[in-house]
């Protein structure tokens, strides 16, 4: 065996790593990618995001299950935005949520704004009039557990198209009645299983699961499926959503893994 023939020179190895990294990281302007803040963990997250987008077929459907597969579902995180004891309680929107809930959400509106041609607000009845999608899917929590439930709602795509997505739009960010906001890229936003859910297991969305409307992003972990939705903002550039977003709290933005 000739040792030299096999030997991969260290320089070639480093060049190889660097060019592979460049391939995965380049191709988008910085404002179209989540920032790393110079943090090595966020660089790893960015590599995962870019690699998944490059290597996985676009918009594959998450597995849908049978009715008999529905399991019990824990409700974690905030289970009532009006509860001032919850860590994500918001002093303005919390009491507002309480009033809306008392009125059976008749006055609740979902605002859709940002890079859309016709900014709009939708009542629960408006959303329920749109073509509904029902799916029995698995919720995967970052903690390690999972649960299968039936979700009923309107595809996010339908709502975004009703408001007219501008061609330059790249991200869809969504805000809750508590201090929680999340965002997804257009690929996940337009995914046929990404829905705004108002029903769970055949009934109206229970309070602890995000009444009256929550996001369902079936290709990512549970924390992207934000509960108690208040508004949707479409953007051209990446928005880390400040102190109420995942990034500034030390959590990955893309969690398809």
């Amino acid at each position, binding site marked *: 065996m000739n040792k030299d*023939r096999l030997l991969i020179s260290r320089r070639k190895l480093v060049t190889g790593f660097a060019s592979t990294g460049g391939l995965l990281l380049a191709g988008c302007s910085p404002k179209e990618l989540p920032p790393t803040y110079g943090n090595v963990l966020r660089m790893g997250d960015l590599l995962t995001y870019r690699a998944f987008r490059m290597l996985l077929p676009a918009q594959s459907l998450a597995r849908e299950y049978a009715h008999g*597969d529905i399991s019990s579902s824990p409700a974690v995180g905030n289970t009532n935005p009006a509860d001032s004891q919850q860590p994500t309680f918001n002093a303005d929107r919390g009491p507002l949520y309480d009033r809306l809930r008392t009125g059976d959400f008749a006055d609740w509106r979902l605002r859709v704004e940002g890079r859309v041609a016709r900014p709009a607000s939708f009542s629960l009845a408006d959303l329920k009039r749109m073509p509904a999608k029902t799916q029995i899917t698995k919720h995967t929590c970052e903690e390690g557990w999972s649960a299968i439930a039936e979700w009923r709602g309107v595809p996010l795509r339908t709502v975004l198209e009703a408001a007219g997505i501008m061609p330059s739009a790249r991200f869809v960010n969504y805000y809750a009645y508590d201090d929680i906001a999340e965002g997804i890229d257009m690929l996940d936003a337009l995914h046929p299983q990404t829905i705004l859910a108002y029903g769970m297991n055949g009934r109206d969305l229970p309070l602890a*699961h995000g009444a009256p409307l929550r996001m369902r992003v079936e290709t990512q972990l549970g924390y992207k499926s934000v509960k108690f939705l208040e508004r949707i903002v479409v953007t051209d550039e990446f928005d880390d959503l400040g102190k109420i977003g995942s990034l500034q709290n030390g959590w990955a933005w893309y969690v398809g*893994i």
Partner: protein
Amino acid sequence: MRHKNNQAVGQRASVTGCREMPVATATFGEVQQHSVAGHPRWLRISHWILAASVFTLAVSGVVILMAHPRLYWGAVGNDLTPALFELPIGRNYKHGGWAAPLTFFTGANQVVSAARTYDIFNQNGWARSLHFLAAWFLVVTAIIYLGAGLIGGRLLRNLVPRFHELSPRLLWQDVVAHLRLPMPRATGGPPYGVLQKLSYFGVVFLALPLMVVTGLTMAPAVTAAYPVLLDVFGGSQSARTIHFFAFAALVLFLVVHVAMVVLTGFKHQMRVMILGD
């Protein structure tokens, strides 16, 4: 040093290339005498990157597991469904903080929901990202290691046991040789004894690939793209449980591996894996 190493490689090739020579059947003690020191540079570099990756993956993996120290079998599992087993690690073990349940469906397969009222231990923000960062290092290095090792034939030659080595008598001889103290000094590197081959083969070709694939079976974007993974492992919670058992096997390997390095001459063994001879 490099010149000497090249000679050593040449000698070894001629020895293992000769079928009549009983090098491959040597028991532990004999192997030590026949052994010719030396690991090529690509192997030494990838060994240490892989070692650091595995260590980081193990530590961050335990932190992730501590957030939910319950394991299941099948597609789903959570605090409201029965566990396969629970691990007493950290304060989330059997925590009782659940509000009164809401019933969705009654009957044999009762489906409920309950709100958690307990502030769990959860460091997954950094632990998950660190886990995947280390996994990238592991996967990229493993591809280079497997590529270099398979192309040169080194991996198959040194790590795959020959059929005749797997006889109960030879296996037993090697077990006995490993239990005799003090251990003979090692010169470092191949040819390896049959137990050594079996354990390295198990780690390189079985445990580590299984770790990567069961890990990916927990990723919702990956299982959407390749749902066959869910069928292969019987669900993402089964994959998580297999991931845990493969971790336990790798920890066991690591303990024995390090013990053997210490018992057969720590300084020399480290020198061989760092400097090559």
